[in-house]
């Protein structure tokens, strides 16, 4: 998880497990929704033929589609977490912290 900020020994930070969940879980939910809507409109076998994978089965298409969506949504969730870091923090936390 290189996208998670490395400088987070603050007391008020969420525990890392919860941070991972807060990236993976909302992205899972939105990816599921996106998958349902996308494949209601598009048939994976037809997409497979257009994309040059005529042997793609529907189950395979749904699965690959779902994981692509999940990848995208988790990237955006991770970026949200990343950008939520305060910008006015010193780059090296040792400069400001007695510990």
């Amino acid at each position: 998880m290189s996208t998670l900020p490395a400088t987070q020994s603050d007391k008020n930070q969420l525990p890392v497990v919860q941070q991972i969940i807060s990236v993976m879980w909302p992205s899972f939910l939105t990816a599921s929704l996106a998958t349902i809507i996308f494949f209601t409109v598009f048939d994976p076998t037809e997409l497979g033929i257009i994309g040059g994978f005529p042997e793609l089965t529907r189950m395979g298409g749904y699965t690959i589609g779902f994981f692509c969506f999940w990848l995208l949504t988790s990237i955006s969730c991770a970026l949200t977490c990343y950008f939520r870091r305060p910008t006015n923090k010193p780059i090296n936390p040792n400069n400001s912290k007695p510990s």
Partner: protein
Amino acid sequence: MSEPAASQNNQSIETELYKKREKIYAREVHGIFAALRLLAMAALLGIYYGLPWIRWDDHQAILFDLPARKFHIFGLTFWPQDFFYLSMLLIIAAIALFMFTALAGRLWCGYACPQTVWTEIYMWIERKIEGGAKAQKKRDQGPRNAAYFGVKIAKHAAWLLFSLWTGFTFVGYFSPIQDLWTSFMTWTLGPWETFWIFFYGFATYGNAGFMREQVCIYMCPYARFQSAMFDHDTLVISYDEKRGNPRGSRRRGTPSADVGLGDCIDCGLCVQVCPVGIDIRDGLQYQCIGCAACVDVCDDVMDKMGYPRGLVKYTTENSLQGKRTKIVRPRILVYIAILTFVSSALVYGLLTRIPLEVDIIRDRNVLYTETDEGMVQNVYNLKLINMASEAQRYKLSVSGLEGLQVLGKTQDIELESGAVKDLPLRVQIDPIVLKSPSSKIMFHIESQTSPEISADESARFLGPASR
């Protein structure tokens, strides 16, 4: 960033990451609500594992057939084109849940939520193999000997088997379960099916075996926003502070007044049984899933002490303050109004649904051709889907321009229930009537078997520029 700082930080992250949560050893409870919950859970699990095996006509009664892209719900068959009805159904479910929450609080969480139901089952398996809460705790703090690992391996094996069965059943809702079973028995499951069985099984194993109350506290969106639906008339589980405090132990059968205490004997049992590890006596907390374990156990204590039951009970904020609880209130009326509206729209939509889907695609390669007889010809591909539950015979006509002729089958187009047919159509016209290079024409398809089933679909007819 400098190296030492980074490693120091990584270290602190690691300790946070690996710091195990305090495992909650919830005591088993017996009582009215425990029995009710058991009943609800048995029913729900029975439905979950049994439903995909039930058949209706010649297909699985409930099947979201993803490989075939159609949904069977008993006698009804839905297609991706019917997505609208599905979303209506979801809206109805959501609003019903809102209303239910406003009325009954977290009754859903305690009795019906899959997370609770599977956690209970996994805890039950754990108790059968590992013994009660005390024995479990003792074992976990004791030595790591052969007996320890034997018991743990047995538990995880049982959990894993149950997870796999759960995953298998789950996939059975999306891919015909009997075929799935046959391929499972003959070891010929497709790669994707296998993947999803393991994926879902693993999720169940993790959520019900390990995450448990963490899911409710950190992951459940419903738990977070339910407070918006609560009001002073919502059914909650609460400790009666006025009656219970001051707390303190005393001998069995001593009337509270004699020792100058409230009715709570401070036995701490309500805390020991709580699956989310909170103390209900601290007031309503958002972690509380309303499982009523504390109600049962405290009623038991009250019985033993000879005090009236209900020190911890289902109640409402208003009734705790001595006010009257109103069931019918504006919020509920609004929910009822929305529910009635959306449900009637859904029923109306279903009743008037035309079980015929028509798609017309122009031949993309050629705009138009001129035949030897001097006619202008356009080629279309007509796609018909019979969404009715019986086979149909259709007839077809074209209108919009004078003298349109259809070459190809226009009568007795037979289609089985649920079948799809592609029909190439050549439409010709005398160029004299063409007023513009592109005109709108209408295809009309009507069932000869049941004439109320008909559909119109427009298309463009292309020709040479008008002369």
